[in-house]
């Protein structure tokens, strides 16, 4: 499983390499004219002359038949013909026709000695051959030959192909080769001695960033470092100072040394953008001088924006603003310099009214992230009128959408009413594509900033009136949740829905809300003769026949609730229930409800009715299901202001953690109707009578921490399944026995269990589990584990099975953590302190001070440290209350010695934990793991 750098890293490497190689002085023979493939041109002209689609298809089929017969023919084709036919295939493919042959011929072209033929071969492969093609081995062979050919042109073609296909197979095949070539590349020969270090790539790219003369190479290197830095920020910390230095050189230069890369009077805009991106991987530099220099750069960039343009061309302003926007992103990312933030905000404010639509768009987008900073939130708010104006007048829907986003982000209690009102009025004319999102946003803002809930109820009912079709279930569930949970608004809600239902045509969602609320709280308005019980019932029932089955089901439940609330309408309702259209309804659900409710109303005493049909209990407060929906819809990246959701800077969309959490909440949300009915909710579930598929599995990790200091126990349990673990570890190897127990009396079908491991771990399932697990039975699965290098992420166990027709899927974090590969080391006091001193570099030590979560018991603590894997060293620390431990983490690639010290402070109920290891990532991880245990 995935060793070595990822394909993306590979690509970036290649990118570098490509630049390096092309800088080599190629010897090109100068020759005169001579060109082309006549056959191809003729064919293309033919196609263009076709009068109809049919004629075109006919011509193409004819050509395909011709090519096929040529390829199949006995006569060996010469390179030129092959090239020509492969080119024709490419053209046909471009027109949207499937190409199912010719791949072999394209691969053959790779071994041609002619540049033109080879090139077409590679082109075909990178456009048409997918990564799992069975030809991949042959292709790899061809590439390998070219890589070793010592012909720079051929090498470039091969590298380019690897970069574009970028498949795992290729990455694996060439992972070793590429850094080697990279180091040999002519431009960076000077780096060779450095690359003898542990991490050749790291050394190489950092030096390129430092010394690289050619801007193109540096741009590529910056892209590479940015990607690597996102993976392991600590390894590339040094790039910050290099990037700042380079940026400062560009920004302040008189652009003499950068002439080649000056684009419409802007010095190296692309490189500047990339550098600013790279810096967004890190917090503001701690070193004051460096920080000052960076601030100076950012200020200069902001200043330049105020200078008169050096050219009227749009390219000039584009390039200049590309850098400016990136600088603003960085300022927002750092979020630490109030003056810069406010300047950025003012600059964006100017752009909001710029005549270039692009700039208005980007300004709205950037301001959205700016709104979430405490320093600039107020400054952003001053632009509210402009933004509202944009919402009303922009011709472009993408810009209007950004305006909606920004209004949402800048909303707080002071301006909520205005913003919600503006959004509602925009909703009436909004584009269909963004209506649902606006509805969600209005619903969230209305709830979040509601001072009095009558406003909230009005807003939601307005929403339903204006855009009923776009009001998703979550929105109207939510209004019901809130009304039920708040006594103060129930009467008002009943009155308002009653009034709203009077409209001749009202949306079905309104009928749902109305039915539910009147069913619960109709009594609160029954005193008024204009809304007497009978009037209420007739009003609801007048909508009944126009509604869909689920709504009718809900209304039937409202009716039975009416029988409880208002005994005087019992006879009327019973009559309705008794009618053939109910009792003999073709829909089973409706029929069943009618029958049951009718019987219930006939036989149950008033007391029983009152108990059965009691008012709904309050819903437990949890995250709004609407918010969860919006998050799911947009991904966290576009949701400023709520939680910590910054735009992911460099394209890695890491929603996973965030999203799984929300789905977890949604699936347990009562109104989301997941199949986990608790006693109190059963009626409600029944009322809504919709069954939904099991929510996508979120990763369960509640018991994870319990396994840090022990190896056996129950990992997971729900009503259906229990998962138990036994595990043993020796050096960098481990074996885990996983037991799956079926707690039901029914068979589980299609049972599968698989493990997704992070790269530094190798997990191997010895044998798959039997796909059926009988009721009450337990099956065992054995997992072999190998630790390749230190890691943080634990593997995830994914289980799927069918139980009673529904697919269950469960994901559990497997408790395989770094400390499992601990071997205890006994040592004397003197040795300990000597080593402790050796590991004195600041990054080798990680310290954490935390509050005790459990009683501070010496024996328990000792047991935990031993369970953690370290040897407990007695008599080492001069203070006998302290605990000291030592051990070695074994991974395949290396062994890491670890020393730890835990100092309890019983008075304050605090601990101080210090870890020193030779590797900072290990110190950090061990500290995180162990500190959670006390």
């Amino acid at each position, binding site marked *: 499983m995935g060793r070595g750098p990822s394909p993306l890293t590979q690509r970036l490497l290649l990118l570098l390499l490509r630049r390096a190689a092309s800088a080599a002085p190629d010897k090109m023979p100068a020759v005169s004219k001579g060109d082309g493939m006549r056959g191809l041109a003729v064919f293309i002209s033919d196609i263009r002359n076709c009068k109809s689609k049919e004629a075109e298809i006919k011509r193409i089929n004819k050509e395909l038949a011709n090519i096929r017969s040529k390829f199949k023919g006995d006569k060996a084709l010469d390179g030129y013909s092959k090239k020509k036919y492969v080119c024709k295939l490419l053209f046909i493919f471009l027109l949207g026709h499937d190409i199912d042959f010719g791949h072999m011929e394209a691969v053959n072209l790779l071994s041609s000695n002619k540049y033109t033929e080879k090139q077409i071969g590679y082109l075909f492969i990178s456009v048409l051959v997918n990564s799992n093609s069975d030809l991949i081995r042959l292709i790899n062979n061809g590439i390998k030959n070219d890589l070793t050919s010592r012909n720079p042109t051929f090498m470039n073609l091969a590298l380019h192909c690897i970069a574009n296909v970028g498949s795992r197979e290729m990455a694996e095949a060439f992972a070793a080769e590429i850094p080697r070539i990279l180091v040999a590349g002519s431009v960076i020969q000077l780096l060779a001695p450095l690359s003898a270090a542990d991490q050749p790539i790291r050394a190489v790219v950092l030096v390129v960033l430092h010394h690289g003369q050619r801007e193109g190479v540096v741009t590529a290197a910056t892209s590479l470092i940015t990607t690597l830095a996102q993976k392991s920020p600590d390894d590339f910390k040094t790039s910050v100072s290099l990037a700042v230095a380079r940026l400062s050189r560009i920004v302040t230069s008189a652009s003499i040394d950068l002439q080649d890369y000056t684009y419409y009077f802007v010095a190296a805009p692309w490189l500047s953008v990339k550098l600013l991106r790279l810096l967004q991987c890190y917090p503001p530099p701690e070193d004051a001088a460096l920080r000052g220099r960076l601030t100076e750069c950012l200020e200069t960039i902001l200043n330049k924006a105020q200078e008169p343009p050096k050219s009227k061309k749009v390219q000039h302003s584009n390039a200049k603003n590309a850098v400016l926007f990136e600088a603003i992103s960085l300022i927002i990312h750092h979020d630490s310099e109030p003056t810069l933030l406010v300047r950025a905000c003012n600059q964006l404010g100017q752009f909001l009214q710029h005549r270039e639509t692009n700039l208005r768009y980007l300004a709205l987008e950037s301001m959205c992230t700016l709104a979430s900073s405490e320093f600039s939130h107020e400054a952003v708010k001053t632009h509210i009128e402009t933004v509202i104006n944009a919402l009303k007048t922009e011709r472009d829907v993408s*810009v209007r959408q950004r305006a909606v986003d920004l209004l949402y982000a800048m909303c707080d209690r002071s301006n909520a009413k205005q913003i919600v009102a503006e959004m509602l009025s925009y909703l009436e004319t909004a584009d269909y594509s963004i209506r649902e999102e606006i509805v969600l946003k209005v619903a969230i803002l209305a709830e979040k900033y509601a001072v009095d809930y009558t406003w909230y109820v009005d807003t939601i009912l307005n929403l339903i009136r204006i855009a009923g079709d776009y009001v998703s279930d979550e929105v109207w569930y939510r209004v019901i949740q809130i009304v039920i949970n708040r006594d103060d608004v129930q009467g008002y809600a009943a009155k308002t829905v009653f009034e709203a239902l009077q409209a001749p045509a009202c949306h079905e969602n309104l009928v749902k809300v109305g039915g539910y609320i009147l069913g619960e709280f109709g009594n609160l308005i029954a005193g008024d003769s204009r809304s007497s019980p009978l009037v209420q019932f007739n009003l609801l029932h007048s909508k009944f026949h126009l509604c869909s089955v689920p709504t009718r089901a809900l209304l039937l439940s409202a009716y039975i609730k009416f029988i409880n609330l208002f005994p005087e309408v019992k006879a009327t309702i019973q009559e309705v229930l008794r009618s053939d259209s109910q009792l003999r309804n073709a829909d089973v659900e409706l029929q069943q409800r009618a029958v049951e409710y009718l019987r219930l109303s006939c036989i149950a005493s008033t007391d029983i009715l009152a108990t059965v049909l009691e008012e709904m209990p309050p819903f437990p407060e949890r995250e709004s299901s609407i918010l969860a929906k919006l998050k799911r819809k947009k991904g966290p990246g576009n949701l400023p202001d709520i939680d910590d959701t910054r735009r992911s800077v460099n394209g890695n969309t890491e929603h996973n953690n965030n999203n799984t959490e929300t789905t977890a909440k949604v699936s347990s949300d009562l109104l989301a109707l997941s199949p986990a009915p608790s006693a109190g909710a059963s009626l409600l579930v029944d009322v809504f009578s919709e069954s939904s598929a099991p929510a996508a599995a979120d990763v369960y990790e509640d018991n994870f921490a319990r396994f840090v200091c022990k190896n056996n126990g129950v990992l997971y349990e729900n009503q259906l399944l229990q998962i138990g673990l036994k595990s043993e570890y020796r050096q960098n190897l481990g074996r885990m026995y996983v037991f799956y127990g079926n707690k039901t009396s029914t068979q589980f079908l299609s049972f599968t269990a698989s493990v997704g491991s992070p790269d530094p771990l190798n997990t191997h399932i010895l044998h798959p589990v039997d796909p059926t697990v009988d009721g009450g039975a337990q099956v065992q699965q054995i997992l072999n584990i190998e630790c390749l290098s230190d890691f943080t992420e634990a593997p995830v166990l994914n289980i799927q099975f069918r139980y009673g027709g529904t697919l269950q899927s469960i994901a559990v974090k497997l408790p395989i953590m770094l400390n499992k590969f601990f071997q205890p080391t006994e040592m004397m006091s003197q040795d300990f302190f000597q080593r402790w001193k050796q590991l004195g570099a600041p990054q080798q030590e990680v310290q954490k001070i935390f509050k005790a979560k459990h009683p501070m018991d010496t024996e328990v603590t000792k047991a935990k440290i031993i369970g953690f894997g370290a040897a407990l060293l007695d008599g080492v620390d001069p203070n006998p209350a302290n605990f000291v431990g030592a051990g070695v983490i074994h991974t395949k690639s290396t062994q890491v010695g670890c020393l730890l010290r835990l100092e309890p402070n019983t008075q304050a109920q605090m601990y101080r934990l210090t870890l020193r290891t030779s590797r900072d990532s290990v110190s950090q991880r061990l500290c995180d793991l162990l500190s959670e245990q006390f």
Partner: protein
Amino acid sequence: MIKAILIFNNHGKPRLSKFYEHYSEDTEQQIIRETFHLVSKRDENVCNFLEGGMLIGGSDNKLIYRHYATLYFVFCVDSSESELGILDLIQVFVETLDKCFENVCELDLIFHVDKVHNILAEMVMGGMVLETNMNEIITQVDAQNKMEKSEVRIFDHENSQSPSYI
């Protein structure tokens, strides 16, 4: 990262499609159609960015495009790219095409798809921007052309016997 580069004309006929992520052939065609649908209905003078269609990853991705005469140049990128930067890149691409084909028009793209691919390959590789300096790109393209021409010369004499196959 750049996910895809598409060129199509005002009627949606693809003139170049280059995907840097793997999609099935069918999906690729659908993406081209979807993108054309999204882009073509927009007025002139609106902004050059919009959220990507569902097939190519929805709102995580942006479409950045320019419309020149009969052709749309569309870059589909993720959030790691600077919008204005890509806009400039499109401009560089088109200017380069213009220099290489001397007043480029749609016909040039139709008859020389391979050349367009090669020029693009000088600028973007594996979805990453490789070179932005037009002079540099043109130098490389010229070198390629020379090499092609030289081969036609050399191998004309040898009655071109194909080399050994794999």
